[in-house]
């Protein structure tokens, strides 16, 4: 499933976005089409504050870096697009 992507050499931003959208739609029971990429998942009512914890654990498990408490900000977690940038900058390969 999602774990596969960590084994590829290069992960494009598109792959990060697809994997995030898969996770969010599966985990929070929402259709992908209903997720607005540039809006906050909290403001649009898809997740609550626990959802942020779930997303940060998902990132750690799938992109091989630990999200520190200081990184959990609106700047990084404020929307799917911001998350993609954040993951792209911090991702590591096995």
């Amino acid at each position, binding site marked *: 499933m999602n774990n596969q992507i960590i084994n590829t050499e290069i992960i494009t931003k598109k792959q990060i976005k697809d994997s995030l959208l898969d996770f969010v739609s599966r985990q929070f029971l*929402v259709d992908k089409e209903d997720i607005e990429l540039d809006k906050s998942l909290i403001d649009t*009512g898809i997740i*609550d504050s626990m959802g942020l914890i*779930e997303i940060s654990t998902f990132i750690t498990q799938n992109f091989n870096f630990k999200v520190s408490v200081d990184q959990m900000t609106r700047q990084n*977690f404020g929307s799917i697009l911001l998350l993609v940038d954040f993951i792209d900058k911090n991702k590591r390969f096995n």
Partner: protein
Amino acid sequence: MKNIKRCTRCILSENFPKIEFDEKGVCNICNNELLCSTDSVIIDKARGEIKNLFDVARGKSEYDAILCYSGGKDSTYTLKLAVEKYNLKVLSFTLDNGFISPTAFRNIEKVVSKLGVDQITYRPSYKFMKSLFRLSSLETIYNPRTLIRISANCNSCISIVNNTALKLALEKDIPFILAGFTLGQIPCNTIYYKNNYEFLKDTRKPILDKLKSQLGDEVSRYFEISDSLITKSGFYPHNINLLTLEDITENEIIEEILPMGWEIPKDVDGCSTNCIINAFNNHIHNEKYGYSPYELELSHLIRNGQIARERALEKIYDRPVDQIEYTYRELEIKHN
């Protein structure tokens, strides 16, 4: 009511969000093991990391951990684990929401005495709790999407539990906050975590604003932590759900806690072992959304072999009318 269509393997009903059934009547969640059901790799990894966290922090503060103790079976067993298996010096903390069963209080007394731990009970103003419950029953405070595994009233109550536990942890330099959630009640990627309080505060603001507009500034006392306390303490505790690391059935949990004098309360509904308002909360959730907030958790336990399907159905259909009526009266909500 009982002829509602349900998955033939778990108990998710046709009203559950995004549910689909295949030709055999099995739901998409059973078929795909969605919602991160049992990932033994994740759990094993968490087990090791949690052990390390405990080993590093044990003995460095007045208490190693504060445990949110409701008196129910799961948190009772979690308290026993924390003390006996993990060797932690625990402060047990109970939020009295005004609807705790008297049997649950006796259970708390017996268990903390038996385990030799300190116990704090915090009872917010009953007047406030009633108006909070009335508001979260009658109005849509939380987005329905975030209520798939919890009723609105439980959500309100647990927010106060979490906030008070965090406050106590910060005041007393306690590195861990423990709770007795099971997988199913929480997803497996929240077995342990740290919060960023600033961001948390930011994200909860719209809900707190809604609460404050109806209930006044008193909301702050129960739902917020002062900036000065955050700055002064300068650390964030870890939240850890120890019970998620155990492979144990409901019956085995009860067998483990009965010797401490724990008794099953008779004045609660089938889904609770401590709280009288639960029957009402589930009733409101059922009326509003057409499914029980316990369906997801119980279905997870069924798939994991931790409870029989029949037993799970018994639980969600145990809806004591007297407790529901009692709550309507206490909250002063008129109904037909």
